[in-house]
Protein backbone atom coordinates (compact mmCIF):
# COMPACT_ATOMS: atom_id res chain seq x y z
CA UNK A 1 0.00 0.00 0.00
CA UNK A 2 1.17 3.52 -0.76
CA UNK A 3 2.09 5.73 2.12
CA UNK A 4 -0.84 7.81 3.31
CA UNK A 5 -0.12 11.50 3.51
CA UNK A 6 -2.39 14.10 4.97
CA UNK A 7 -2.65 17.77 4.29
CA UNK A 8 -4.62 20.85 5.23
CA UNK A 9 -7.45 22.02 3.01
CA UNK A 10 -5.71 24.13 0.41
CA UNK A 11 -8.21 26.51 -1.09
CA UNK A 12 -8.30 29.95 -2.62
CA UNK A 13 -8.61 32.34 0.38
CA UNK A 14 -11.43 34.18 -1.36
CA UNK A 15 -13.50 31.01 -1.61
CA UNK A 16 -12.62 30.08 1.98
CA UNK A 17 -13.62 33.44 3.42
CA UNK A 18 -16.77 33.76 1.35
CA UNK A 19 -17.90 30.32 2.61
CA UNK A 20 -16.83 31.19 6.14
CA UNK A 21 -18.80 34.44 6.12
CA UNK A 22 -21.84 32.80 4.53
CA UNK A 23 -21.90 30.05 7.17
CA UNK A 24 -21.23 32.66 9.87
CA UNK A 25 -24.27 34.64 8.76
CA UNK A 26 -26.46 31.52 9.02
CA UNK A 27 -25.05 30.82 12.49
CA UNK A 28 -25.84 34.38 13.58
CA UNK A 29 -29.36 34.00 12.19
CA UNK A 30 -29.69 30.78 14.20
CA UNK A 31 -28.56 32.47 17.41
CA UNK A 32 -30.85 35.42 16.67
CA UNK A 33 -33.84 33.11 16.22
CA UNK A 34 -33.03 31.25 19.41
CA UNK A 35 -32.64 34.52 21.33
CA UNK A 36 -35.96 35.77 20.02
CA UNK A 37 -37.71 32.53 21.01
CA UNK A 38 -36.21 32.78 24.48
CA UNK A 39 -37.17 36.43 24.83
CA UNK A 40 -40.72 36.12 23.56
CA UNK A 41 -41.41 32.57 24.67
CA UNK A 42 -42.23 29.58 22.52
CA UNK A 43 -45.61 30.94 21.43
CA UNK A 44 -43.78 32.52 18.48
CA UNK A 45 -42.91 29.02 17.26
CA UNK A 46 -45.23 26.45 15.74
CA UNK A 47 -44.86 24.26 18.81
CA UNK A 48 -47.61 24.18 21.40
CA UNK A 49 -48.97 22.05 24.24
CA UNK A 50 -49.93 19.36 21.72
CA UNK A 51 -46.83 19.19 19.51
CA UNK A 52 -44.18 19.89 22.13
CA UNK A 53 -41.15 18.95 20.02
CA UNK A 54 -40.92 20.51 16.57
CA UNK A 55 -38.55 21.46 13.78
CA UNK A 56 -35.55 22.18 16.06
CA UNK A 57 -35.79 18.62 17.36
CA UNK A 58 -35.96 17.22 13.81
CA UNK A 59 -32.72 19.06 13.01
CA UNK A 60 -31.08 18.22 16.35
CA UNK A 61 -31.89 14.49 16.39
CA UNK A 62 -30.96 14.17 12.72
CA UNK A 63 -27.60 15.87 13.26
CA UNK A 64 -26.84 13.68 16.29
CA UNK A 65 -27.82 10.53 14.37
CA UNK A 66 -25.60 11.66 11.47
CA UNK A 67 -22.75 12.42 13.92
CA UNK A 68 -22.83 8.84 15.06
CA UNK A 69 -23.16 7.40 11.56
CA UNK A 70 -20.53 9.52 9.87
CA UNK A 71 -17.95 7.81 12.08
CA UNK A 72 -18.58 4.66 10.00
CA UNK A 73 -15.67 5.32 7.73
CA UNK A 74 -13.21 5.64 10.60
CA UNK A 75 -14.71 2.59 12.32
CA UNK A 76 -14.32 0.48 9.20
CA UNK A 77 -10.72 1.58 8.97
CA UNK A 78 -9.69 1.19 12.62
CA UNK A 79 -12.00 -1.48 13.99
CA UNK A 80 -12.33 -3.73 10.97
CA UNK A 81 -8.85 -2.94 9.70
CA UNK A 82 -9.86 -2.06 6.16
CA UNK A 83 -6.80 -0.27 4.83
CA UNK A 84 -8.87 1.06 1.95
CA UNK A 85 -10.59 3.51 4.30
CA UNK A 86 -7.54 4.59 6.29
CA UNK A 87 -6.99 7.84 4.36
CA UNK A 88 -10.63 8.79 4.89
CA UNK A 89 -10.75 8.12 8.62
CA UNK A 90 -9.59 11.43 10.21
CA UNK A 91 -12.15 13.46 8.25
CA UNK A 92 -14.82 11.02 9.40
CA UNK A 93 -14.01 11.69 13.06
CA UNK A 94 -13.94 15.46 12.48
CA UNK A 95 -17.35 15.35 10.84
CA UNK A 96 -18.70 13.31 13.75
CA UNK A 97 -17.59 15.86 16.32
CA UNK A 98 -18.87 18.77 14.18
CA UNK A 99 -22.34 17.31 13.70
CA UNK A 100 -22.55 16.30 17.35
CA UNK A 101 -21.75 19.83 18.57
CA UNK A 102 -24.26 21.30 16.12
CA UNK A 103 -27.03 18.90 17.13
CA UNK A 104 -26.47 19.57 20.80
CA UNK A 105 -26.37 23.33 20.23
CA UNK A 106 -29.82 23.24 18.60
CA UNK A 107 -31.20 21.04 21.36
CA UNK A 108 -29.92 23.36 24.08
CA UNK A 109 -30.98 26.57 22.33
CA UNK A 110 -34.52 25.29 21.97
CA UNK A 111 -34.93 24.62 25.69
CA UNK A 112 -37.51 26.73 27.47
CA UNK A 113 -34.67 27.77 29.76
CA UNK A 114 -31.39 27.56 27.83
CA UNK A 115 -29.81 29.70 30.56
CA UNK A 116 -30.22 26.74 32.90
CA UNK A 117 -27.85 24.52 30.95
CA UNK A 118 -25.65 24.46 34.04
CA UNK A 119 -28.54 22.79 35.93
CA UNK A 120 -28.72 20.09 33.26
CA UNK A 121 -24.96 19.61 33.54
CA UNK A 122 -24.90 19.35 37.33
CA UNK A 123 -28.24 17.85 38.43
CA UNK A 124 -29.04 14.38 37.20
CA UNK A 125 -31.91 11.95 37.41
CA UNK A 126 -30.33 8.65 36.41
CA UNK A 127 -33.70 7.08 35.72
CA UNK A 128 -33.98 9.40 32.74
CA UNK A 129 -32.46 8.38 29.41
CA UNK A 130 -32.03 12.13 28.80
CA UNK A 131 -29.59 12.27 31.72
CA UNK A 132 -27.67 9.31 30.35
CA UNK A 133 -27.58 10.99 26.96
CA UNK A 134 -25.95 14.09 28.45
CA UNK A 135 -23.05 11.82 29.48
CA UNK A 136 -23.12 9.84 26.25
CA UNK A 137 -23.04 12.96 24.06
CA UNK A 138 -20.39 14.90 25.98
CA UNK A 139 -18.36 11.72 26.44
CA UNK A 140 -18.55 11.03 22.71
CA UNK A 141 -17.01 14.43 21.97
CA UNK A 142 -14.10 13.64 24.31
CA UNK A 143 -13.64 10.13 22.86
CA UNK A 144 -13.68 11.55 19.32
CA UNK A 145 -11.09 14.19 20.19
CA UNK A 146 -8.80 11.50 21.63
CA UNK A 147 -9.42 9.28 18.60
CA UNK A 148 -8.52 12.07 16.19
CA UNK A 149 -5.34 12.69 18.15
CA UNK A 150 -4.29 9.04 17.87
CA UNK A 151 -4.97 9.09 14.14
CA UNK A 152 -3.10 12.30 13.37
CA UNK A 153 -0.14 12.17 15.77
CA UNK A 154 2.30 9.44 14.77
CA UNK A 155 3.70 9.16 18.30
CA UNK A 156 0.39 7.90 19.64
CA UNK A 157 -0.76 6.26 16.42
CA UNK A 158 -0.38 2.78 17.92
CA UNK A 159 -3.40 3.50 20.13
CA UNK A 160 -5.68 4.42 17.23
CA UNK A 161 -7.11 0.91 16.83
CA UNK A 162 -7.98 0.82 20.52
CA UNK A 163 -9.51 4.31 20.45
CA UNK A 164 -11.34 3.49 17.23
CA UNK A 165 -12.87 0.41 18.79
CA UNK A 166 -13.77 2.38 21.90
CA UNK A 167 -15.39 5.15 19.82
CA UNK A 168 -17.25 2.51 17.79
CA UNK A 169 -18.70 0.94 20.94
CA UNK A 170 -19.52 4.35 22.37
CA UNK A 171 -21.42 5.49 19.33
CA UNK A 172 -23.49 2.30 19.16
CA UNK A 173 -24.54 2.94 22.78
CA UNK A 174 -25.07 6.64 22.00
CA UNK A 175 -27.45 5.96 19.12
CA UNK A 176 -29.21 3.35 21.24
CA UNK A 177 -29.70 6.14 23.79
CA UNK A 178 -31.04 8.51 21.13
CA UNK A 179 -33.53 5.91 19.88
CA UNK A 180 -34.49 5.13 23.47
CA UNK A 181 -35.56 8.76 24.06
CA UNK A 182 -38.61 7.75 22.06
CA UNK A 183 -38.61 4.05 22.89
CA UNK A 184 -39.25 4.68 26.58
CA UNK A 185 -42.39 6.76 26.08
CA UNK A 186 -44.96 4.15 27.11
CA UNK A 187 -47.93 6.48 26.71
CA UNK A 188 -47.37 7.15 23.01
CA UNK A 189 -48.47 4.48 20.60
CA UNK A 190 -45.86 5.52 18.06
CA UNK A 191 -42.94 5.20 20.41
CA UNK A 192 -43.34 2.56 23.06
CA UNK A 193 -41.08 -0.04 21.45
CA UNK A 194 -37.46 -1.12 21.88
CA UNK A 195 -37.08 -1.55 18.10
CA UNK A 196 -36.59 2.21 17.84
CA UNK A 197 -33.05 1.79 19.22
CA UNK A 198 -31.74 -0.54 16.47
CA UNK A 199 -33.80 1.39 13.91
CA UNK A 200 -31.94 4.55 14.89
CA UNK A 201 -28.62 2.69 14.62
CA UNK A 202 -29.27 1.53 11.04
CA UNK A 203 -30.57 5.01 10.19
CA UNK A 204 -27.32 6.49 11.51
CA UNK A 205 -25.25 4.07 9.43
CA UNK A 206 -27.11 5.05 6.26
CA UNK A 207 -27.37 8.80 6.83
CA UNK A 208 -23.78 9.07 8.07
CA UNK A 209 -22.39 7.35 4.98
CA UNK A 210 -24.47 9.57 2.69
CA UNK A 211 -23.37 12.77 4.43
CA UNK A 212 -19.75 11.67 4.44
CA UNK A 213 -19.80 10.99 0.73
CA UNK A 214 -21.50 14.29 -0.14
CA UNK A 215 -19.04 16.31 1.96
CA UNK A 216 -16.10 14.43 0.46
CA UNK A 217 -17.45 15.26 -2.99
CA UNK A 218 -17.76 18.96 -2.13
CA UNK A 219 -14.22 19.02 -0.71
CA UNK A 220 -12.82 17.22 -3.75
CA UNK A 221 -14.28 19.97 -5.97
CA UNK A 222 -11.85 22.43 -4.41
CA UNK A 223 -9.07 20.13 -3.33
CA UNK A 224 -6.96 17.71 -5.30
CA UNK A 225 -8.45 14.54 -3.85
CA UNK A 226 -8.76 11.55 -6.05
CA UNK A 227 -11.13 8.89 -4.81
CA UNK A 228 -10.29 5.57 -6.44
CA UNK A 229 -12.92 3.37 -7.98
CA UNK A 230 -12.61 0.57 -5.45
CA UNK A 231 -13.37 2.99 -2.57
CA UNK A 232 -16.42 4.17 -4.49
CA UNK A 233 -17.51 0.61 -5.23
CA UNK A 234 -17.14 -0.25 -1.58
CA UNK A 235 -19.15 2.80 -0.48
CA UNK A 236 -21.82 1.86 -2.99
CA UNK A 237 -22.09 -1.69 -1.65
CA UNK A 238 -22.16 -0.41 1.92
CA UNK A 239 -24.94 2.05 1.10
CA UNK A 240 -27.04 -0.67 -0.54
CA UNK A 241 -26.57 -2.86 2.53
CA UNK A 242 -27.57 -0.03 4.89
CA UNK A 243 -30.59 0.81 2.73
CA UNK A 244 -31.87 -2.77 2.94
CA UNK A 245 -31.17 -2.84 6.68
CA UNK A 246 -33.24 0.34 7.03
CA UNK A 247 -36.07 -1.10 5.02
CA UNK A 248 -36.01 -4.24 7.15
CA UNK A 249 -36.05 -2.45 10.52
CA UNK A 250 -38.64 0.07 9.34
CA UNK A 251 -40.87 -2.81 8.24
CA UNK A 252 -40.22 -4.66 11.47
CA UNK A 253 -41.10 -1.57 13.55
CA UNK A 254 -44.45 -1.09 11.83
CA UNK A 255 -45.39 -4.78 11.57
CA UNK A 256 -44.64 -5.44 15.24
CA UNK A 257 -46.53 -2.28 16.19
CA UNK A 258 -49.52 -3.60 14.26
CA UNK A 259 -49.30 -6.82 16.22
CA UNK A 260 -49.71 -4.87 19.49
CA UNK A 261 -53.50 -4.51 19.57
CA UNK A 262 -53.41 -1.15 21.34
CA UNK A 263 -51.14 0.34 18.68
CA UNK A 264 -53.08 -0.81 15.63
CA UNK A 265 -55.02 2.45 15.32
CA UNK A 266 -51.79 4.42 15.21
CA UNK A 267 -50.45 2.16 12.46
CA UNK A 268 -53.64 2.64 10.43
CA UNK A 269 -53.18 6.39 10.93
CA UNK A 270 -49.55 6.58 9.86
CA UNK A 271 -49.80 4.05 7.01
CA UNK A 272 -53.13 4.96 5.44
CA UNK A 273 -55.29 7.72 6.92
CA UNK A 274 -52.86 10.25 8.38
CA UNK A 275 -52.91 12.81 5.52
CA UNK A 276 -49.61 14.68 5.41
CA UNK A 277 -48.00 12.15 7.76
CA UNK A 278 -49.00 9.18 5.60
CA UNK A 279 -47.85 10.97 2.46
CA UNK A 280 -44.54 11.88 4.12
CA UNK A 281 -44.05 8.30 5.25
CA UNK A 282 -44.62 6.63 1.89
CA UNK A 283 -43.30 9.27 -0.46
CA UNK A 284 -40.53 10.80 1.65
CA UNK A 285 -39.29 8.16 4.06
CA UNK A 286 -39.86 5.02 1.96
CA UNK A 287 -39.76 5.95 -1.74
CA UNK A 288 -37.37 8.95 -1.79
CA UNK A 289 -35.31 7.89 1.20
CA UNK A 290 -34.94 4.16 0.57
CA UNK A 291 -36.47 2.68 -2.61
CA UNK A 292 -35.15 5.20 -5.17
CA UNK A 293 -31.59 5.12 -3.75
CA UNK A 294 -31.65 1.30 -3.92
CA UNK A 295 -32.75 1.42 -7.57
CA UNK A 296 -30.16 4.07 -8.46
CA UNK A 297 -27.31 2.28 -6.72
CA UNK A 298 -28.26 -1.09 -8.16
CA UNK A 299 -28.41 0.23 -11.70
CA UNK A 300 -25.36 -0.12 -13.91
CA UNK A 301 -26.40 2.69 -16.21
CA UNK A 302 -25.03 5.50 -14.02
CA UNK A 303 -21.37 5.93 -13.19
CA UNK A 304 -20.56 5.16 -9.57
CA UNK A 305 -19.80 8.79 -8.70
CA UNK A 306 -23.10 10.07 -10.04
CA UNK A 307 -25.09 7.18 -8.59
CA UNK A 308 -23.61 7.77 -5.14
CA UNK A 309 -24.12 11.54 -5.34
CA UNK A 310 -27.78 11.30 -6.38
CA UNK A 311 -28.61 8.49 -3.97
CA UNK A 312 -26.85 10.22 -1.05
CA UNK A 313 -28.80 13.38 -1.76
CA UNK A 314 -32.07 11.42 -1.83
CA UNK A 315 -31.13 9.59 1.38
CA UNK A 316 -30.52 12.96 3.04
CA UNK A 317 -33.92 14.24 1.90
CA UNK A 318 -35.52 11.03 3.11
CA UNK A 319 -33.74 11.28 6.46
CA UNK A 320 -35.29 14.66 7.13
CA UNK A 321 -38.75 13.37 6.25
CA UNK A 322 -38.17 10.25 8.37
CA UNK A 323 -37.46 12.43 11.40
CA UNK A 324 -40.58 14.46 10.61
CA UNK A 325 -42.72 11.31 10.52
CA UNK A 326 -41.18 9.89 13.71
CA UNK A 327 -41.08 13.07 15.81
CA UNK A 328 -44.09 15.07 14.57
CA UNK A 329 -46.25 12.17 13.36
CA UNK A 330 -45.79 10.38 16.67
CA UNK A 331 -47.02 13.40 18.62
CA UNK A 332 -49.76 14.33 16.18
CA UNK A 333 -51.63 11.13 16.90
CA UNK A 334 -53.78 11.79 19.99
CA UNK A 335 -53.27 10.00 23.30
CA UNK A 336 -55.68 7.24 24.18
CA UNK A 337 -56.82 8.34 27.64
CA UNK A 338 -60.16 6.52 27.51
CA UNK A 339 -59.77 3.33 25.45
CA UNK A 340 -63.50 2.50 25.73
CA UNK A 341 -64.84 6.02 25.19
CA UNK A 342 -64.89 8.72 22.54
CA UNK A 343 -63.96 12.21 23.70
CA UNK A 344 -66.75 14.47 22.42
CA UNK A 345 -65.69 17.78 23.85
CA UNK A 346 -62.44 19.15 25.24
CA UNK A 347 -60.80 22.53 25.51
CA UNK A 348 -57.35 20.94 25.25
CA UNK A 349 -57.56 19.21 21.86
CA UNK A 350 -57.96 15.70 23.27
CA UNK A 351 -58.71 13.02 20.67
CA UNK A 352 -57.81 15.40 17.84
CA UNK A 353 -55.06 14.81 15.29
CA UNK A 354 -52.75 17.72 15.93
CA UNK A 355 -51.37 19.91 13.21
CA UNK A 356 -47.98 21.59 13.19
CA UNK A 357 -46.75 24.49 11.13
CA UNK A 358 -43.17 25.41 12.01
CA UNK A 359 -42.26 29.08 12.27
CA UNK A 360 -39.40 30.80 10.50
CA UNK A 361 -37.53 31.05 13.84
CA UNK A 362 -37.42 27.28 14.25
CA UNK A 363 -36.18 26.92 10.69
CA UNK A 364 -33.56 29.63 11.31
CA UNK A 365 -32.31 27.81 14.39
CA UNK A 366 -32.12 24.49 12.51
CA UNK A 367 -30.27 25.95 9.53
CA UNK A 368 -27.95 27.78 11.93
CA UNK A 369 -27.12 24.40 13.47
CA UNK A 370 -26.29 22.87 10.10
CA UNK A 371 -24.08 25.89 9.34
CA UNK A 372 -22.34 25.38 12.70
CA UNK A 373 -21.51 21.77 11.76
CA UNK A 374 -20.13 22.88 8.42
CA UNK A 375 -18.10 25.79 9.78
CA UNK A 376 -16.44 23.57 12.41
CA UNK A 377 -15.55 21.15 9.60
CA UNK A 378 -14.25 24.01 7.45
CA UNK A 379 -12.11 25.42 10.25
CA UNK A 380 -10.89 21.92 11.11
CA UNK A 381 -9.79 20.93 7.63
CA UNK A 382 -8.27 24.36 6.93
CA UNK A 383 -6.08 24.30 10.04
CA UNK A 384 -5.26 20.63 10.58
CA UNK A 385 -4.11 17.89 8.26
CA UNK A 386 -7.34 15.92 7.92
CA UNK A 387 -7.39 15.40 4.16
CA UNK A 388 -5.39 12.78 2.31
CA UNK A 389 -3.31 14.26 -0.51
CA UNK A 390 -4.47 11.32 -2.57
CA UNK A 391 -6.65 8.47 -1.55
CA UNK A 392 -5.22 5.29 -2.91
CA UNK A 393 -5.31 1.60 -2.28
CA UNK A 394 -3.48 -1.60 -3.20
CA UNK A 395 -5.91 -2.05 -6.08
CA UNK A 396 -6.01 1.56 -7.14
CA UNK A 397 -5.88 1.98 -10.86
CA UNK A 398 -4.33 5.41 -10.61
CA UNK A 399 -0.69 5.46 -9.52
CA UNK A 400 0.19 7.53 -6.49
CA UNK A 401 3.36 9.49 -6.73
CA UNK A 402 2.87 11.92 -3.86
CA UNK A 403 4.23 10.16 -0.85
CA UNK A 404 5.69 12.99 1.17
CA UNK A 405 5.26 12.68 4.88
CA UNK A 406 2.63 14.71 6.56
Amino acid sequence: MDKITFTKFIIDPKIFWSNFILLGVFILIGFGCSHYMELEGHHVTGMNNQIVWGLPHIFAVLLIVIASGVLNIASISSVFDKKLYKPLAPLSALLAISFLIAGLAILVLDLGRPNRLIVAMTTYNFKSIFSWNIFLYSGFAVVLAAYMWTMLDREVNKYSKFMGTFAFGWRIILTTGTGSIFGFLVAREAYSTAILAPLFIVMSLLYGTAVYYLILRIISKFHNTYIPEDVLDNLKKLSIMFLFANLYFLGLYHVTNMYIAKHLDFEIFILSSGGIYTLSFWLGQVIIGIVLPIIILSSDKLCTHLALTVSSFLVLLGSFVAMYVIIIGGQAYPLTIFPDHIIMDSSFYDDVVHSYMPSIYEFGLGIGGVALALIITLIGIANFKFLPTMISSPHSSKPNDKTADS
Partner: protein
Amino acid sequence: MRNSAELTRREFIVKSVTAISAVYIIPDLIPKAVASKPLDVEVSDKTKWAINVDVNKCVDGCTACVEACVDENGLYGFDRPETDSQWIRKLRIKDIKTDKVTTLPMMCQHCENPPCVDVCPTGASFRREDGIVMVNQHTCIGCRYCMLACPFKARSFVHENLTEQVTSAPRGKGCVESCNLCANRIDHGSETTACEEACMKEGHHAITFGDLADPNSRVSIAMQAKPSRRLREDMKLKQRVTYSGF
Protein backbone atom coordinates in the same frame (compact mmCIF):
# COMPACT_ATOMS: atom_id res chain seq x y z
CA MET B 1 -2.65 63.90 64.79
CA ARG B 2 -5.28 61.38 63.69
CA ASN B 3 -8.76 62.61 62.90
CA SER B 4 -11.09 60.75 65.28
CA ALA B 5 -13.62 60.42 62.48
CA GLU B 6 -11.17 58.36 60.41
CA LEU B 7 -11.10 54.59 60.72
CA THR B 8 -7.93 52.62 61.18
CA ARG B 9 -7.58 49.49 59.09
CA ARG B 10 -8.18 47.31 62.17
CA GLU B 11 -11.33 49.24 63.12
CA PHE B 12 -12.58 48.99 59.58
CA ILE B 13 -12.13 45.18 59.48
CA VAL B 14 -13.68 44.69 62.95
CA LYS B 15 -16.69 46.84 62.13
CA SER B 16 -17.16 45.21 58.72
CA VAL B 17 -17.08 41.72 60.18
CA THR B 18 -19.52 42.79 62.92
CA ALA B 19 -21.88 44.26 60.34
CA ILE B 20 -21.74 41.14 58.15
CA SER B 21 -22.32 38.96 61.21
CA ALA B 22 -25.29 41.07 62.19
CA VAL B 23 -26.85 40.69 58.78
CA TYR B 24 -26.05 37.07 57.93
CA ILE B 25 -25.08 35.05 61.00
CA ILE B 26 -26.96 36.36 64.02
CA PRO B 27 -30.46 35.81 62.55
CA ASP B 28 -29.58 32.13 62.13
CA LEU B 29 -28.62 31.86 65.80
CA ILE B 30 -31.89 33.29 67.04
CA PRO B 31 -34.65 30.65 67.22
CA LYS B 32 -37.01 31.07 64.31
CA ALA B 33 -40.43 32.53 64.80
CA VAL B 34 -42.75 29.59 65.14
CA ALA B 35 -44.19 28.82 61.70
CA SER B 36 -47.80 27.90 61.55
CA LYS B 37 -48.35 24.18 61.21
CA PRO B 38 -48.02 22.17 59.09
CA LEU B 39 -45.30 24.17 57.27
CA ASP B 40 -42.75 23.19 59.92
CA VAL B 41 -43.68 19.55 59.62
CA GLU B 42 -41.78 17.65 56.99
CA VAL B 43 -43.90 16.11 54.27
CA SER B 44 -44.10 12.37 54.88
CA ASP B 45 -45.71 9.29 53.40
CA LYS B 46 -47.97 9.11 56.45
CA THR B 47 -50.23 11.41 54.47
CA LYS B 48 -51.56 10.18 51.14
CA TRP B 49 -53.30 13.03 49.34
CA ALA B 50 -55.85 11.88 46.80
CA ILE B 51 -58.86 12.99 44.79
CA ASN B 52 -61.95 11.04 43.90
CA VAL B 53 -64.30 12.23 41.16
CA ASP B 54 -67.87 11.01 41.14
CA VAL B 55 -68.74 11.50 37.48
CA ASN B 56 -72.47 11.07 38.17
CA LYS B 57 -72.39 14.26 40.22
CA CYS B 58 -70.31 16.23 37.71
CA VAL B 59 -72.65 18.60 35.89
CA ASP B 60 -72.42 19.09 32.14
CA GLY B 61 -71.63 22.72 31.35
CA CYS B 62 -70.32 23.54 34.83
CA THR B 63 -66.74 24.78 34.81
CA ALA B 64 -66.49 25.99 38.41
CA CYS B 65 -63.47 23.77 39.13
CA VAL B 66 -61.61 25.07 36.09
CA GLU B 67 -62.33 28.71 36.95
CA ALA B 68 -61.30 28.18 40.59
CA CYS B 69 -58.00 26.63 39.46
CA VAL B 70 -57.34 29.57 37.15
CA ASP B 71 -57.94 32.05 39.99
CA GLU B 72 -56.00 30.05 42.58
CA ASN B 73 -52.91 29.69 40.42
CA GLY B 74 -53.13 32.81 38.26
CA LEU B 75 -53.47 30.79 35.06
CA TYR B 76 -54.74 33.73 33.05
CA GLY B 77 -54.22 32.92 29.39
CA PHE B 78 -53.59 34.98 26.30
CA ASP B 79 -56.61 33.74 24.37
CA ARG B 80 -54.36 31.27 22.57
CA PRO B 81 -55.89 27.89 23.44
CA GLU B 82 -53.10 25.89 21.81
CA THR B 83 -50.40 27.41 24.00
CA ASP B 84 -52.25 28.64 27.11
CA SER B 85 -51.76 26.54 30.26
CA GLN B 86 -54.55 24.29 31.48
CA TRP B 87 -54.06 22.51 34.78
CA ILE B 88 -57.59 21.13 34.82
CA ARG B 89 -60.05 20.78 31.96
CA LYS B 90 -63.58 19.48 31.53
CA LEU B 91 -64.18 16.59 29.13
CA ARG B 92 -67.37 15.12 27.67
CA ILE B 93 -66.93 11.48 26.80
CA LYS B 94 -69.21 8.86 25.27
CA ASP B 95 -69.10 5.15 26.04
CA ILE B 96 -68.52 3.24 22.81
CA LYS B 97 -70.79 0.34 23.86
CA THR B 98 -73.63 2.08 25.68
CA ASP B 99 -73.51 5.60 24.19
CA LYS B 100 -73.73 6.97 27.71
CA VAL B 101 -72.37 10.51 27.84
CA THR B 102 -70.31 11.50 30.86
CA THR B 103 -68.63 14.71 31.84
CA LEU B 104 -65.62 14.85 34.12
CA PRO B 105 -62.66 17.01 35.16
CA MET B 106 -59.22 15.95 33.94
CA MET B 107 -56.04 17.00 35.67
CA CYS B 108 -52.66 15.58 36.71
CA GLN B 109 -53.46 12.12 38.02
CA HIS B 110 -50.64 12.18 40.61
CA CYS B 111 -49.33 8.74 39.75
CA GLU B 112 -47.40 6.70 42.28
CA ASN B 113 -45.23 5.59 39.33
CA PRO B 114 -45.18 8.84 37.36
CA PRO B 115 -43.62 8.62 33.87
CA CYS B 116 -42.99 12.39 33.95
CA VAL B 117 -40.72 11.95 36.99
CA ASP B 118 -38.90 9.01 35.39
CA VAL B 119 -37.98 10.93 32.24
CA CYS B 120 -37.09 14.35 33.71
CA PRO B 121 -33.33 14.79 33.19
CA THR B 122 -32.79 17.18 36.09
CA GLY B 123 -35.24 15.76 38.61
CA ALA B 124 -37.29 18.97 38.43
CA SER B 125 -40.37 16.84 37.94
CA PHE B 126 -40.72 15.10 41.28
CA ARG B 127 -43.12 13.27 43.56
CA ARG B 128 -43.47 14.30 47.17
CA GLU B 129 -43.67 11.74 49.94
CA ASP B 130 -47.33 12.59 50.37
CA GLY B 131 -48.03 11.73 46.72
CA ILE B 132 -48.17 15.15 45.09
CA VAL B 133 -46.44 15.18 41.70
CA MET B 134 -45.16 18.63 40.83
CA VAL B 135 -42.47 20.61 39.00
CA ASN B 136 -39.63 22.47 40.68
CA GLN B 137 -39.77 25.77 38.81
CA HIS B 138 -36.15 26.51 39.69
CA THR B 139 -34.61 23.42 38.08
CA CYS B 140 -36.97 22.82 35.14
CA ILE B 141 -34.95 23.47 31.97
CA GLY B 142 -38.00 23.41 29.70
CA CYS B 143 -37.10 20.32 27.64
CA ARG B 144 -40.78 19.19 27.60
CA TYR B 145 -39.83 15.50 27.74
CA CYS B 146 -42.28 15.05 30.65
CA MET B 147 -45.09 16.37 28.44
CA LEU B 148 -44.33 13.67 25.89
CA ALA B 149 -44.26 11.05 28.64
CA CYS B 150 -47.52 11.97 30.40
CA PRO B 151 -50.32 9.59 29.33
CA PHE B 152 -53.03 12.08 30.36
CA LYS B 153 -51.88 15.27 28.64
CA ALA B 154 -51.90 16.86 32.05
CA ARG B 155 -48.95 19.19 31.62
CA SER B 156 -48.58 22.60 30.04
CA PHE B 157 -45.55 24.56 28.94
CA VAL B 158 -45.46 28.28 29.71
CA HIS B 159 -45.14 29.71 26.23
CA GLU B 160 -44.90 33.43 26.97
CA ASN B 161 -44.06 36.19 29.41
CA LEU B 162 -46.38 36.19 32.38
CA THR B 163 -48.04 39.07 34.14
CA GLU B 164 -50.53 39.07 37.02
CA GLN B 165 -48.82 36.16 38.72
CA VAL B 166 -50.19 34.98 42.03
CA THR B 167 -47.55 35.11 44.77
CA SER B 168 -48.67 31.78 46.22
CA ALA B 169 -48.22 30.01 42.87
CA PRO B 170 -45.09 31.31 41.13
CA ARG B 171 -44.82 30.28 37.49
CA GLY B 172 -42.10 30.82 34.94
CA LYS B 173 -41.87 31.27 31.19
CA GLY B 174 -40.07 28.34 29.62
CA CYS B 175 -41.00 25.89 32.37
CA VAL B 176 -43.50 23.06 32.46
CA GLU B 177 -46.31 23.09 35.00
CA SER B 178 -49.33 21.10 36.07
CA CYS B 179 -51.85 20.60 38.87
CA ASN B 180 -50.04 20.31 42.21
CA LEU B 181 -53.15 19.57 44.29
CA CYS B 182 -52.94 23.17 45.58
CA ALA B 183 -49.77 22.22 47.47
CA ASN B 184 -49.36 25.76 48.75
CA ARG B 185 -52.86 25.74 50.28
CA ILE B 186 -52.62 22.38 51.96
CA ASP B 187 -49.10 23.06 53.22
CA HIS B 188 -50.58 26.07 54.98
CA GLY B 189 -53.14 23.88 56.66
CA SER B 190 -56.06 23.99 54.24
CA GLU B 191 -58.01 20.77 53.95
CA THR B 192 -59.39 21.42 50.51
CA THR B 193 -58.18 22.23 47.03
CA ALA B 194 -59.54 25.11 44.99
CA CYS B 195 -61.37 22.77 42.60
CA GLU B 196 -63.01 20.76 45.38
CA GLU B 197 -64.02 23.93 47.21
CA ALA B 198 -65.62 25.36 44.05
CA CYS B 199 -67.42 22.10 43.32
CA MET B 200 -68.80 22.05 46.87
CA LYS B 201 -69.87 25.69 46.65
CA GLU B 202 -71.85 24.84 43.52
CA GLY B 203 -73.48 22.08 45.56
CA HIS B 204 -72.32 19.31 43.21
CA HIS B 205 -69.80 17.50 45.43
CA ALA B 206 -68.34 15.66 42.45
CA ILE B 207 -64.72 16.29 43.50
CA THR B 208 -63.58 14.94 46.86
CA PHE B 209 -60.10 15.64 48.17
CA GLY B 210 -58.43 14.21 51.25
CA ASP B 211 -55.97 11.92 52.93
CA LEU B 212 -56.25 8.27 51.88
CA ALA B 213 -54.23 7.25 54.93
CA ASP B 214 -57.05 8.48 57.15
CA PRO B 215 -60.03 6.07 56.90
CA ASN B 216 -62.37 8.81 58.09
CA SER B 217 -61.28 11.41 55.53
CA ARG B 218 -63.80 12.61 52.96
CA VAL B 219 -61.96 10.94 50.11
CA SER B 220 -61.69 7.57 51.93
CA ILE B 221 -65.42 7.62 52.73
CA ALA B 222 -66.27 8.57 49.13
CA MET B 223 -64.16 5.74 47.75
CA GLN B 224 -65.65 3.23 50.19
CA ALA B 225 -69.17 4.28 49.18
CA LYS B 226 -68.71 3.65 45.44
CA PRO B 227 -66.33 1.54 43.40
CA SER B 228 -63.76 3.67 41.69
CA ARG B 229 -61.30 3.17 38.87
CA ARG B 230 -58.12 4.67 37.58
CA LEU B 231 -57.69 5.77 33.96
CA ARG B 232 -55.51 3.51 31.79
CA GLU B 233 -55.16 0.95 34.58
CA ASP B 234 -53.24 -1.23 32.12
CA MET B 235 -50.24 1.07 32.57
CA LYS B 236 -50.11 0.34 36.30
CA LEU B 237 -49.25 3.90 37.23
CA LYS B 238 -51.30 3.77 40.45
CA GLN B 239 -52.76 7.24 40.13
CA ARG B 240 -54.02 9.03 43.24
CA VAL B 241 -56.87 10.52 41.22
CA THR B 242 -59.69 8.02 40.83
CA TYR B 243 -63.07 8.16 39.11
CA SER B 244 -66.33 6.64 40.34
CA GLY B 245 -69.52 6.09 38.41
CA PHE B 246 -68.34 5.03 34.96
